[in-house]
């Protein structure tokens, strides 16, 4: 084994390779690795933040839901109350209307009866007078006996 110029050739090749590696191989690869590392780290932080946001949003949503439920229950309660109130009112109104109508009917009936009675009385009076007139036609003066007829009419 003898030392010769191969050594120099190898050293030159070595220098060129190292230079090439330093210039064209190492920087782009390491840059890519570091950029990816950064990207992954960013992604992880973002994911963590998103998780926290989600948790917060879920809590908020649950709260909102609870609130809405309470509100709905309140509304239903109110509606129920209002319904009973309305029914009650309607009932009362109906009752009043009914009694009013009955009273009216009664009054009308009463009035009709009075009128009929009055008419009847008049007719009977006229009839009586006519009868009496016919009876007493010949002898008795109509004016002299009218007080008797009035008394008779009043008695009917």
């Amino acid at each position: 084994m003898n030392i010769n110029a191969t050594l120099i050739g190898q050293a030159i090749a070595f220098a060129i390779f190292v230079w090439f590696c330093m210039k064209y191989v190492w920087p782009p690869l390491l840059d890519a690795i570091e950029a990816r590392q950064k990207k992954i780290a960013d992604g992880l932080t973002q994911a963590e933040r998103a998780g926290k946001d989600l948790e917060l949003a879920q809590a908020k949503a649950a709260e909102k839901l609870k609130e809405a439920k309470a509100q709905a229950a309140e509304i239903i309660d109110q509606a129920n109350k209002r319904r009973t109130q309305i029914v009650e009112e309607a009932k009362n109104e109906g009752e009043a209307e009914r009694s009013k109508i009955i009273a009216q009917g009664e009054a009308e009936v009463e009035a009709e009866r009075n009128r009929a009675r009055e008419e009847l009385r008049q007719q009977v009076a006229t009839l009586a007078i006519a009868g009496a007139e016919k009876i007493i036609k010949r002898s008795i003066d109509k004016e002299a006996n009218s007080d008797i007829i009035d008394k008779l009419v009043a008695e009917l």
Partner: protein
Amino acid sequence: MAGQGEALTSSSYIQHHLTNLTWSVDGGWNAHDAGFWTFHVDSLLIAVGLGVLFLWLFRSVAKRSTVGVPGKLQCFIEMVIDFVDENVKDTFHGKNALIAPLALTIFVWVFLMNLMDLVPVDLLPHAAQTIGIPYLKVVPTTDLNVTLGMSLSVFALIIYYTVKVKGVGGFVKELTMQPFNHWAFIPVNFLLEAVTLLAKPVSLGLRLFGNLYAGELIFILIALLGYWQLPLYFPWAVFHILIIVLQAFIFMMLTIVYLSMAHEDH
């Protein structure tokens, strides 16, 4: 597989496997003792080819890399990048844009060169011989020139950054005023520190070379066994997977450690 029609003996077989395809400025192809200006063409071509393969693969992924969901290949490449980056960040506490790409290049390139060890020892040399190439040593890291070429480059970087960070004075002081901080000890200090300093590239290069050379030699020895090589070849190859990765990792780690030492004041 001995070349030039020699009788096939064990030693010639091994010898053949351990011979590089050479070209020298003075003697041309495969000349004996052609002096310093000789190139191991096979080692260089395979090493450069693997380096280009590494850079092409990583560059093509880098060009298509997305910040979004990565593909499987990109995932794999990014795992390698991340592994190297983590090791660099654990060891090297400074700002230097060179260290991490340097570590990545060393790790992957050395790994690929070591990986050639798992190619069956006769496959490529035999194929080369049939197309007329007499010698082919497949694993570049079993070539001392290759490992020393890398470790000496690292050594140059160590010196460069030591001087750059601490100044020439700081470098000289580091060599002479440690571990005994007194002028009278300067020669002793210098001796100790010089050995320490020089041991770095030598040990770095020799460790890789030694491991892979020994591993390759054992592969060759197993290949000599004829039919009995199969039960032996498999466990040694499995075990070697570990060595391949480990040696690439050690080379990378030591480079990072040496360079981080060069950056730090004591």
